[in-house]
């Protein structure tokens, strides 16, 4: 395939321009990495938003029973009160067994019977019109309950910040990869021009302008980059599709939920490689030709 690529391109340049085999490999690898980074960012962003949405749809209430009331009774009353609040889909007092099940992995079986556990109510909010934490607190206070409402806003903020950081890191990785691609193409253009110095001089002496000569390198490296980009993106698409098939609808893991539609973003990879190559080859060729004037 590499040989086929090298035999194409503007015919006025020699087919054996220097360093093009490794350039194809380098760009294909860079595009593969960029594709993985892009789809990884999409999946991470989707996961983070999913978690945030889940957290936004739930609240946890800790009830402190009055002197004349047992904990389970207070929790049941709180659940009943909250179930009647607008924006609450369901409220349920967490019994001791459920609370122990949550804690067992952390504290072990032996300590559980003597451990004083808080009395909790799990609240599922209406996703379309969720009740706010102050609304829930007000309802509980009006019912004479001493309780604290946790709407998970702290965690939600952390998750959303993490999603933002992941997206920014993916963007930075993308820029770095694009810069590396441009540098590789600029280097290859310089190497190619050195290899073909006599061809360039012959073309110039026969009336070729700098722009024309730069255009030859532009088209050659643009074409190579697009093809190499397609190879890298294709390999990434195959790998990701395989992971998606293995992982099923939820993706490989819940932390990185892949979707087949994510693969559409990979179409941009060869186009971006083509654009970066065009610019890098043109600027390098013109700068080199100008330096020799």
């Amino acid at each position: 395939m590499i040989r086929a690529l090298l035999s194409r391109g503007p015919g006025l340049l020699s087919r054996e321009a220097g360093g093009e085999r490794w350039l194809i490999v380098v760009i294909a690898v860079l595009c593969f990495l960029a594709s993985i980074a892009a789809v990884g960012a999409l999946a991470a962003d989707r996961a983070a938003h999913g978690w945030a949405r889940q957290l936004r749809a739930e609240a946890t209430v800790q009830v402190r029973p009055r002197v004349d009331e047992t904990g389970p009774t207070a929790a049941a009353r709180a659940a009943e009160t909250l179930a009647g609040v607008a924006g609450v889909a369901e409220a349920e007092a967490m019994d001791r067994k459920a609370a122990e099940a949550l804690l067992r992995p952390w504290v072990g079986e032996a300590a559980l019977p003597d451990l004083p556990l808080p009395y909790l109510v799990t609240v599922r909010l209406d996703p379309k019109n969720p009740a706010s934490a102050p609304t829930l607190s007000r309802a509980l206070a009006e019912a004479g309950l001493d309780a604290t409402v946790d709407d998970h806003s702290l965690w939600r903020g952390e998750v959303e910040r993490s999603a933002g950081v992941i997206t920014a890191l993916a963007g930075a990785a993308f820029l770095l990869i694009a810069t590396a691609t441009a540098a590789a193409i600029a280097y290859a253009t310089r190497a190619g021009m050195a290899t073909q110095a006599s061809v360039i001089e012959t073309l110039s002496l026969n009336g070729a302008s700098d722009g024309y000569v730069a255009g030859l390198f532009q088209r050659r490296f643009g074409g190579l980059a697009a093809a190499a980009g397609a190879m890298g993106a294709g390999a990434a698409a195959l790998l990701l599709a395989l992971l998606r098939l293995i992982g099923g609808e939820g993706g490989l893991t819940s932390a990185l939920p892949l979707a087949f539609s994510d693969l559409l973003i990979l179409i941009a990879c060869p186009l971006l490689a083509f654009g970066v190559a065009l610019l890098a080859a043109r600027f390098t060729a013109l700068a080199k030709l100008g330096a020799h004037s």
Partner: protein
Amino acid sequence: MPNSTRRAADPDPAPDTVRLRGVGFGYADRPDVLRDINLSLTQGSFHFLTGPSGAGKSSLLRLMTLAERPQTGRISLFGREVADLPRGGVPAFRRRMGVVFQDFRLLDHLTAFENAALPLILAGGRTADHAADVAEMLRWVGLGQRMDALPPALSGGEKQRLAIARAVITRPRLILADEPTGSVDRAMGEKLMRLFQSLNRLGATVLIASHDEALAERVGATVLRLENGRLRQMEAAGEAA
């Protein structure tokens, strides 16, 4: 020492195609290749530039093709000072010239046909538009059967003929040829000279660098002699045919 080659009988002389005034040129290891060169080639003139090897003939042609710039003096081409010429303006000038290089400067990855068509392609034409002209030119220089051959497969003489075909395919206004018959036999050399003379009759200015002074005498063109970096003499061996 001025070396005007303007025809004395011309009542309304055409502007000089090439004019050099006090031109000096050299390389780092040979600083005085050319010294105080004064030369005018009028439009439609035919000259031979002779001199021993290393006299500076090729360097003088490189100055005229704008491959090099003089260290001293001034050069004008087609009535324009090249010192004032921006880099972007050079290709247009070169397209008005046809240059035969001593080392042929053929592109080894292109066929003979593509090499001959190169100036047409670079001028923006499509090969298909000029295919008949290119084929005819190649047939004329005896390469009709070698159009698809790559230069490495051609003999020295065939390469030289191909280089000449490429130089004249656009019917340039100025033809600069560096030893254009050095690799061909006498019969082909004279045939190629007739080609240059034909183009000269059509108005092209021709300058042929050659160490073969006998050839210059046979052609009967004006001879400029370059020796030790100076144009020492000009011999009017006769008018171009």
